[in-house]
């Protein structure tokens, strides 16, 4: 059990938390934050797990660090894109959740919009 493994287990916990948050929260911003927490957890696992054991001295595997850097950029891009979309979505509809009643025009009257939970994704 090296110190690096602690990071990995921290990542595991973050991952689980992010996952739960993503499923349970319906506000889009919160969902996005939960996604980012999940992402951070995975990056931690990637870096922490990569350097366990072996002969190499700890902290000296540059590959996962580079991977995580790439991963972070991708996650940042995706987050930024999602934010732009959410802002515009909010601007157009005034909604912060992906509610279902207006999913398409085909289901209009047979649902009571009040009775439905704005679901998790």
């Amino acid at each position, binding site marked *: 059990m090296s110190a690096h493994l602690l990071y*990995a287990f921290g990542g595991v916990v973050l*991952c689980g938390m992010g996952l739960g948050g*993503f499923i349970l929260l319906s506000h*889009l911003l919160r*969902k*996005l934050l939960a*996604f980012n927490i*999940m*992402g951070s957890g*995975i990056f931690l*696992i*990637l870096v922490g*797990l*990569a350097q*366990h054991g*072996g002969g190499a001295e700890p902290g000296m595997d540059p*590959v*996962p660090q580079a*991977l995580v850097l*790439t*991963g972070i950029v*991708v996650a940042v*891009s*995706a987050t930024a*894109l*999602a934010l732009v*979309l*959410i802002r*515009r*979505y909010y601007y*157009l*509809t005034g909604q912060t959740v*992906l509610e279902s009643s*207006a*999913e*398409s025009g*085909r289901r209009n009257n047979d649902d009571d919009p009040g009775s439905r939970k704005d679901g998790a*994704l």
Partner: protein
Amino acid sequence: MTTWLMAGLLFTPLAWAAITLLLSFRNGRWVSWLGMLVQVLVSVGVWLLVVDRGEFYHGLGGWDAPLGIELRVDGLAIIFVLLTATVATACGWHAGMYLDSDKPWQKHFWPLFWFLWAALNSVWLSGDLFNLYVGLEVITLTAVGLVAVGGQADALRAALRYLLVALVGSMAYLLGVALVYGEFGVLSLAVVRELQAENGVGMTLPLALMLGGLAVKSALFPMHGWLPPAHGVAKSPVSGLMSGLVVKASFYIAARLWLELGHEAGSLALAQVLGVLGSAAVVWGSWLALRQKKLKQVVAYSSVAQIGYLFLLFPLTLSVSEAVSLQAQQGVTLQVVSHALAKGAMFLAAGNLILSVRSGEVDALAGVGRFLPFSLFSFGLAGVSLMGLPPSGGFAAKWLLLQASLASGQWWWALVLLAGGLLSALYVFRIYQASFVQDSDLDEFYHPPRSLELVPMILALLALGLGLVVDPMLTLLGRPFGEGSVP
């Protein structure tokens, strides 16, 4: 020469993306049409190279695996490269005429289109787990961008749903990659396969995570909910790209993983579960396609159903004889190709029909057969392939899969294949029936230009004629999913 061809395949689309980013839609159109020509030529060049030289590995930047990223150029990858060239060219050609060039945001179509093409090629060729992740993300973001372009509320909702679900799918895949890297210390799929075969390391969770994430991105039942809104709301050429190619990218990776690692890490039950989900997708997707009131939703749910067939690959390649496994792989490959061609044709034709009646409702199609018989006919020809009737590629695919399922003793998949054919006939003919209705309130139909009608027809004919050239294609697949030199 090899270097140039590989670079042409991967970097030309990127260069075109950069160029078209600086142009208006109209100028971008001409430049892009030129680029498509280049890209098709390069794709054909790589194909000839593989025919001539056989399958090979190509280290990017002169660094071989496991240090660098290695491309794996084999028959299967080439088939997908050619398929991409065909479908993307058709959709791009169609889009150039179909999209309204007066809308200022349309100029973003071309760069996104080219990024998508580049990423697709990279996914087909890459043999590196992490590079595949990056490729997948490029695909996801471009697809989301293409769906959201224009920024209507419906499009945004669909795009957001798609984005969030796809991101979580990618995360699951990445988590799997992280665990694999922790276990093996390498990212090259070929090396991982070797190591796994030598050491027999259990890696059920990583494989399940990767397959699960990819299944979400390929819209496997019951995780398909994001697909119909996204494919239904996008512009028709975009829907064609999405259904034809984008969804296939994640399935392709899943198939590669399964065929490389499944024998060690997979289990019979796991394969059967995936097969059952695929079968459920066939039934559920077709049933909902029958219920949809909007034309493009029908086509989108049909994609859900057709993707279900692909997941029969999992049960049909585990613990069966070499010959049966090969048959299943060939069948699934054919199914991917024919579905991509047919679905591309279907969406483009549906776009023409919608353009003509100015409504997306199925019921609005009444009488359109008199005015747009050509597009309606393309739609029907594509439907023939979806139903799996001869001589279409869909038939050849179904034939091979049926044979594989009977030969492996798993006859229950044969029932699914047959039922799927029946159900798809019902929803295709439902569209026809709607268009044959005599009395139409609409007297005025918009006539799209002939060339718009020509593109889906060509794709549909390709899907239909695919069954006639199965043999040459299958010889290219003679050693599918790579034998040959492992670095």
